[in-house]
């Protein structure tokens, strides 16, 4: 099975669009339904938006992942921005420090099947999410 990996540099709002388009394309190629591809593209849009709003620049990595008898897509958002001082608080609905809707992270968690976040104040944030094909 081929392992595909795509990196998208996130430096501007235009890159948000390009990241989610690439994600949708990869999800469709992997055989995800249109509905699931939309969920994945929306999650990528929110993750890329977090990078632009909080860290200014970063990267989105899209990868195909193979589990036991299943295939999925992994999306990793990486930045070396200010980091999140209180990750637990950031995962609560309605929390935001940039005046946005504050739905970003908990929303992304609901859109995807797996969600992992590592953040160090002053060092950056890594959000890794996965969705498995039904």
């Amino acid at each position: 099975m081929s392992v595909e990996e795509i990196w998208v540099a996130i430096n501007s709002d235009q890159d948000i669009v390009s990241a989610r388009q690439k994600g949708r394309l990869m999800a469709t190629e992997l055989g995800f339904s249109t509905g699931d591809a939309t969920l994945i593209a929306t999650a990528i849009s929110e993750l890329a938006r977090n990078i632009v709003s909080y860290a200014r620049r970063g990267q989105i990595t899209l990868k195909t992942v193979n589990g036991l008898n299943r295939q999925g897509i992994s999306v990793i958002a990486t930045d070396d921005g200010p980091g999140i001082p209180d990750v637990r608080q950031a995962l609560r609905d309605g929390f935001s420090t940039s005046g946005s809707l504050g739905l970003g992270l908990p929303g992304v968690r609901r859109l995807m099947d797996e969600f992992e976040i590592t953040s160090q104040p002053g060092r950056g944030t890594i959000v890794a999410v996965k969705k498995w094909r039904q």
Partner: protein
Amino acid sequence: MEVPILKQGAVLIATFQAALSDADLNQLRMGLVQQVVKFRSRAVIVDVTAMDVMDSFASRTLREIAHMIRLRGAETVIVGIQPEVAFAMVQLGLTLEGVATALDLEEGLAYLNEKFKTTN
């Protein structure tokens, strides 16, 4: 990216494209409100049929457009939200509370006609 805005009597119809960046959406918000003023429009229909992703920024911008236009004394109807987009919006926790929505352009126009009839 240019968004075509069509003037049909007292109604403006804006058709949003698939790949709108935040800058495009911001520009649209201003552009639409200016057009409403210029043409003394009574209503705006925003057709989002082509939009394949509606994230937090896009839905906030739509809400802001609707609220600004309401302050102008006109009405906004969002039409054409695709089923899978609606599903993703609900999962994400996005709502368009206080904003009228309709199935498609035709339904949106019918809704406005009905509304204008009762207010006249």
